[in-house]
């Protein structure tokens, strides 16, 4: 899976939690989950669970705490996929 495919898959996952649809439509690697997409911070937990299920990976608490924007999320998922 290349980066574009990965972002596309991630985008589907975060859609239901997103409050700012304009920021969502213009999503880039630099998009911040809370500041730009206005995702409720409690929902970051649900996003991590959805990522785990969709990519069949396990994301520990340390990684989860860093996962606040698209770029970091992609990096973490790529690392987990590579380690499989």
């Amino acid at each position, binding site marked *: 899976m290349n980066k574009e495919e990965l972002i596309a898959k991630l985008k589907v996952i975060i859609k*239901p*939690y997103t409050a700012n649809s304009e920021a969502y439509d213009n999503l880039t690697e630099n998009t911040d989950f809370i500041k730009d997409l206005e995702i409720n911070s*409690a*929902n970051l*937990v*649900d996003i991590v*669970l959805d990522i785990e299920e969709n990519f069949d990976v396990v994301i520990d608490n340390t990684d989860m705490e860093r996962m606040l924007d698209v770029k970091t999320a992609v990096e973490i998922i790529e690392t987990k996929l590579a380690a499989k």
Partner: protein
Amino acid sequence: MSKRVVITGLGVAAPNGVGIPAFTSAIKNGLSGIRHDSQLQELQFSCQIAGKPEITDELKSQYFTDLELRGFNSTGILYGVIAGMEAWKNAGLPIEINEEPDWDSGTIFGSGTSGIDKFRESIYKIDELQTRKLGSTVVAQTMNSGISAYLGGKLGLGNQVTTNSSACSTGTEAILVAYDRIKSGQAKRILAGSTGDSGPYIWAGFDALRICSSKYNDNPEPGSRPMSATAAGFVPGSGAGALLIEDLDSALERGATIYAEILGGNVNSGGQRGTGSMTAPNSTAVQRCITVAIQNSGISSADVDAINGHLTATTKDSLEIENWTKALNRSRNDFPYINSLKSMTGHCLSAAGSIESIASVLQLYEGFLFGNINCEDLHPEIAALIDPSKVLFKTFNTDLNVIAKASFGFGDVNACVLFKKYKN
């Protein structure tokens, strides 16, 4: 200065009608909401019939976002939000997305438990060492104040947002706590009500106590029989009722519809002393609750036109009637008309007081008394206390002035409220 307190909005999710128009028609026509429950049958309950509001997916999506419905498994919050939002809209109040909370409005929305099915689902996950996979909404769905928290957020309420809990008197108590808060000028509007979860995990404890109706599993509609000689236990029910309770000045300023005035009431407990226990009422306390409620309302017992009883269809119905005759000092032909909504809904437990109060208020506003179903064979002990004509078998139109509503609950707790037709 003490304020006058009125009711300006109603909302309901009852087993025999969801929404005020459906519910009003149901109670006028003696429509039962008691149905066979296949889950209770599979689980081998003694009582396999129950009262559950029928909620369509369309109605759900009117009040909840898709995100809120992900992993949502709390019938109590579902019913409470539907009833609460209906009452708010029915009162003509706007739902706005403002930066500033509405400091003058709050909610006191009672519940016995919250999200018991979500709790069960979570317990299984926890025991399978999957706590990290519970998701983010377990607390919101299972905390007892879940319902008031959901409503507070949807409506932007900035006054008191809380959940009271006093077993089967919860709903009536919520109305009285709201009344006190508005009367003392601490809020202009309180969305008062109560809700109760559906399902075996909430009802099992009652089934275990052998106090539920078990002889009508193949014939659900006659199963709930308050005041009947053949009453043999209550039918478990569920749902929610909500009343928008408002300061009269605020209601008049808004030009709101006024359904009724709350004259006053009383809550007390028998302390589980005398005849009282965890599960049985102390009759002295019941009578005192009613008497003090009437005193607090500034009326006399002769002014009470009708009673909406607690009357669950257990062996205690006759005792309740006896307590009313003593508290009002009225019996035989002098006794007010009396009815029990539970004949059509079953016993909605923590939701009972609010749903039944809505039925009482609708009677005052529209000028009718609904007929009881399933008590054609009036219990002889009741017939010895009051004239049988006081127990209505058929709905009839009549102009009423004052209705007394009482609810009693486990823990020997009592609540009684007096509603009056509003006149300028």
